[in-house]
């Protein structure tokens, strides 16, 4: 007490006494220079995407061709749909390391059920993904298993199951329309890309405009406070796992449809890509912070980088190194931001 001379009007809580006649500067108004850095970190995905796109268009041969853009958008969209589900889950302060295995299961179920008709088979594939999410949600909230361990365990189990039900072989699509979802095209975008953007918009609206979205932010920000406010924290948390599983199932069906076959071994790099894109997009590993549009930008960014490296003939192993380096730098900046937030 007593560092500042107390002004006569004591009602100005939280404001600093002004040096001159100008109105006091409220404390919530950030200092300018720090704010720019924070802004850059918060919207890093959009900034980096702009840089990467400019570079790719100008310097990467064949990047800005219709065929490449069609291929590239389809490619990153399938993993991108998973990123959107993971974004919601991570905002609620969870993570699912097994999204790749769920993706493979979704595709395999779609292929195995194709004789029931493509729409029903697709639905079953998606529900299989949601089912994995339900198991994860149950194990995490009811049996109180840490979500890293829980999703890692279900990943292994799902992988095993996928190989068992396929007899370790690729299942080819023979039903009429099996490959439609992977190849239908509108202008230069194929169906997976359209699905990705559509799901992105829906998820964005859910997270910003509905009470459900607010609840997911709330439980990720402060689950005790959410419980005291009367929210069903466990159910909401479990539901976030179901969303991640559902998105993985959708991605699996799209991937199988595009390949006109379902391979039980796909999805090894999916979690790495999806988590990287989500975190680059501004979603924190520490819950409560993030947004879907940022994740979409993160997916586009990683997609453009991966595609450019391919076009430039960089070897797959160097691409892994680069992707790993990107993830590390992004996680470091997230840890830094989180420390700033907690100390604020």
């Amino acid at each position, binding site marked *: *007490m007593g560092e500042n001379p*107390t002004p006569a009007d*004591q*009602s*100005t*809580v*939280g*404001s600093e006494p002004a040096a001159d006649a100008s109105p006091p500067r*409220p*404390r*919530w108004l*950030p200092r300018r220079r720090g704010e720019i850095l924070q802004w850059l970190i918060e919207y890093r995905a959009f900034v980096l995407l702009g840089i990467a796109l400019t570079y790719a268009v100008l310097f990467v041969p064949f990047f800005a061709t219709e065929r490449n853009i069609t291929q590239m958008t389809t490619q990153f969209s399938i993993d991108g749909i998973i990123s959107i589900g993971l974004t919601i889950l991570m905002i609620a302060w969870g993570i699912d390391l097994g999204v790749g295995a769920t993706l493979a299961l979704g595709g395999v179920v779609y292929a195995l059920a194709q004789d029931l008709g493509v729409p029903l088979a697709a639905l079953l594939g998606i529900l299989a993904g949601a089912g994995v999410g339900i198991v994860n949600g149950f194990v995490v909230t009811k049996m109180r298993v840490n979500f890293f361990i829980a999703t890692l365990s279900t990943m292994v189990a799902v992988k095993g199951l996928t190989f068992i039900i396929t007899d370790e072989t690729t299942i080819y699509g023979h039903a009429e329309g099996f490959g439609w979802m992977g190849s239908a095209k509108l202008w230069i975008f194929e169906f997976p890309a359209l699905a990705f953007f559509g799901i992105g918009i829906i998820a964005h609206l*859910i997270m910003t*405009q*509905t*009470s*459900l979205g*607010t609840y997911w*932010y*709330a439980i*990720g*920000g*402060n689950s*005790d*406070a*959410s*419980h*005291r*406010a*009367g*929210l069903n924290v466990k159910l909401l948390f479990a539901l976030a796992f179901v969303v991640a599983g559902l998105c993985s199932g959708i991605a699996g069906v799209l991937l199988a449809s595009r390949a006109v076959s379902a391979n039980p071994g796909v999805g090894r790099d999916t979690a790495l890509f999806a988590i990287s894109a989500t975190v680059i997009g501004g979603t924190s590993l520490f819950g*409560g*912070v993030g947004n879907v549009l940022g994740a979409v930008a993160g997916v586009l960014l990683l997609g453009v980088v991966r595609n450019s490296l391919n076009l430039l003939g960089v070897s797959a192993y160097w691409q892994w190194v680069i992707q790993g380096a990107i993830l590390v730098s992004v996680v470091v900046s997230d840890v830094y931001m989180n420390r700033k*937030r907690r100390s*604020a």
Partner: protein
Amino acid sequence: MESNYIVEMKGISKRFGSVQALNQVDLELRAGEILGLVGDNAAGKSTLMKILSGAHVADSGQIIINGEEVSIRDPRDARACGIEMIYQDLALCNNLDVARNIFLGREYTRGLPFLSILDKKKMYAESAALLERLNINISSPRLKVERMSGGQRQMVAAAKAIAFDAGILLMDEPTAALGVREANTLLRLIKDLRDEGHSIVLITQRVPDILAIGDRVMVLKGGRRQGILNVSEVGLDDVVELIVRGRAGAESEEDAMEYLSFG
């Protein structure tokens, strides 16, 4: 006289493992008063209030609200009785803005029942009106709580509690982490709330706060009620003596001195 009490707790006991946190405690809160609840650490103050707010369930005892016995088993039950607790460790989500915090779990919505769309306009308008009514100096309900000072956060927590006209407010050491100026502003807010007709239980370590704005003060020690005093009739020494020595007056003079200098 009996009907004057808005809350009565009778014979409340609660045990955590081998610790008897509360032992046959009674509490009566009059309508429209500020009742201070004081006592040393581990005296059972917070436990008693958590039972009233549904965070804990008592092992035995009765709770009577407005003359009717009620069963409070979780925060929803308490809320249905018009009871809101403002926690010491601030039950706010720092990543949400002021309006979303105030309305958390009770949003204004329209449209689909399973995916209800937030009526943000109404939430922001009502939050702004509420902040203004309570003279809370926060420029916009769109501000995120993480950018606010400790005092502002306490006031948001208070606004959250009374947003739905909770008649009974339980405050757990609201001024503990605040500087003198912010604490005074908050105490004035608490007094204003009382004058608006809210009934308030104020847990605090700072006995002078209660003497400044409270009507009565109840002292707990070792999970037992030591007494309930009218603020207008007692001084700091009387309260502190009850806190330190209890009814029996068992402990030494030095403890009382220590507590006085602390308070």
